[in-house]
């Protein structure tokens, strides 16, 4: 992890941590190696569960002392009762999902609050890459070339807020970070924010 990515990552994690009730039950969709959950356990004493498809990532979570489930997030959520978690986190996972709407609705069934964090595809640098260069954006998040990367379903802040209105999901709070991901941004977020975080409720 580059130092740059690390700073971005930690701002993101701090905001999520600020939103979380200490001691709450949290599911992280696409938990990776458990960096975020580990941080939340350390700082907020949450009861954490992660889910990811990859064996080595689950193994890394187990090594950190986290509990994590290897498998498909949708199947896992379907197997759990309503309101099983206080919060479901979907951070930097949304753009990799083929059917984010269904995932968010399922997450809102098993969780009281759903935290969604994603790269704003409407960020001006992303637009510029497409408009001036005719290229897929390459930046701190879209780090790979088109033929090797996973983010397949990018959304902009405007897209996401439209979706919430359409499905009548309540946005309890949000945070838009500027392109450096360090400071908050409130001016023209769909153009100027690089990263967006939302807390959704039913």
């Amino acid at each position, binding site marked *: 992890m580059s130092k740059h*990515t690390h700073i971005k990552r930690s701002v993101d994690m701090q905001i999520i941590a600020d939103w979380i009730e200490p001691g709450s039950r949290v599911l992280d969709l696409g938990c990776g*190696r458990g*960096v975020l959950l580990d941080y939340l356990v350390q700082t907020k004493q949450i009861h954490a569960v992660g889910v990811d498809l990859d064996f080595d990532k689950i193994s890394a979570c187990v090594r950190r002392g986290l509990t994590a489930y290897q*498998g498909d997030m949708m199947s896992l959520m379907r197997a759990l009762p309503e309101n099983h978690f206080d919060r479901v986190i979907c951070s930097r996972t949304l753009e990799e999902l083929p059917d984010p709407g269904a995932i968010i609705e399922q997450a809102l069934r098993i969780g009281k609050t759903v935290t969604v964090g994603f790269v704003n595809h409407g960020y001006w640098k992303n637009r510029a890459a497409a408009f001036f260069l005719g290229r897929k954006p390459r930046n701190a998040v879209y780090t790979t070339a088109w033929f090797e990367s996973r983010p397949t379903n990018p959304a902009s802040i405007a897209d996401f807020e439209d979706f919430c209105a359409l499905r009548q999901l309540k946005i309890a709070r949000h945070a838009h970070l500027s392109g450096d991901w360090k400071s908050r941004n409130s001016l023209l977020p769909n153009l100027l924010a690089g990263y967006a975080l939302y807390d959704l409720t039913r």
Partner: protein
Amino acid sequence: MNDADDDIPSATRSEPGEVGLVEPRDFITTEPFTFDNGQTTPGFTLRYETYGRPNAARDNAILIFHALSGDHHCAGIHSLNDRKPGWWNNLIGPGKAVDTNKFFVLCSNVIGGCQGSSGPSSIDPRTGKPYGITFPSVTIRDMVRTQKLWLDSIGITSIYAAIGGSMGGMQVLQWSIEYPSFVKRALAMATTAREGAQAIAFNEVGRQAILQDPEWNHGYYPKSGGPRVGLAIARMMAHITYLSDASMDRKFGRKAVAAHRKPSPASDVSELSMEGIDPVAPAATFDVRFEVESYLRYQGQSFINRFDANSYLYITRALDQFDLAATHGSLEAAFAEVQAATLVIGFTSDWLFPPDQNRDIALALLRAGKRVSYAELSTDLGHDSFLLESPQLYDLVRGFLN
């Protein structure tokens, strides 16, 4: 996902060592033991081995549970001439995933078995004769309750981790249900909370092979005799269920036995053919032709030299009857009191206790609000994958224990 994440690479490891020479010991009690079915024996014996040492607080004990045909000898060797070490030697030892430099590792074989623990072939002190099928029927819970009495007797008051695969995994689950405050970590792999019809069906064919052998004689047979043919067939069939199509194909394919030698009394082939299994073999047509046949016959033959047919009946029955959901009303209810942090591991090519059955255990624990992880290892080695060398498995086990 979350590709940006990174992880500290695991520290370089010292070359894992060997447990070395070990000696089995016996826990013998003369306190009557009442089985789940209400029958009693005047005490019992459990044979066990230990590796490593208990620490001052005696809180570093790791309990290992064996599968159907396994025993207490899971690591090290009994003599310098031993060709094979204990059955989980690749996992257990100084510096290995279950590190005997840190942990006090214990393994007993189960009640109802025949490798030193009380079972049908043991002498009933009340009659001076082998129990035979007068031995009470055994459940997984009986196995676990006898193990608890053994641990109590040697002053172990908590288990750092309980680890087992297949039937051993059932014991892991039963331990954390039966003695919740005792078990800190539970690691169950290639197992199930209730067998599917297919697994019961395989066990039934094995039992029928034994029961239909005239030498079974309603369970009364001399120590070296008995239904050797039936037991060998049961083992041959069971052995197939431990492997996979892919692993058998890789190992044997359709390879013919070397040159399909002319049958001579001294040939390997006739040695491998089971004693008494074909005294009237119809000529050469059905001699061993393929290596896989030869292998299975060898497995059957070596099994009858170390296993008791009645024990096979008892233990497969215990496996078939294990049903945590039925016993407790639901799997979630079964796990209601569990305190252990649990890790369940499934293996993709396991068709005896398939990944989904392992997954179900993890999901039920999750629904019961417990700390549980589920991992699924991609292997093509079938049910026996949990016994085979796998750095990925070792890393996972090591990570869970540390």
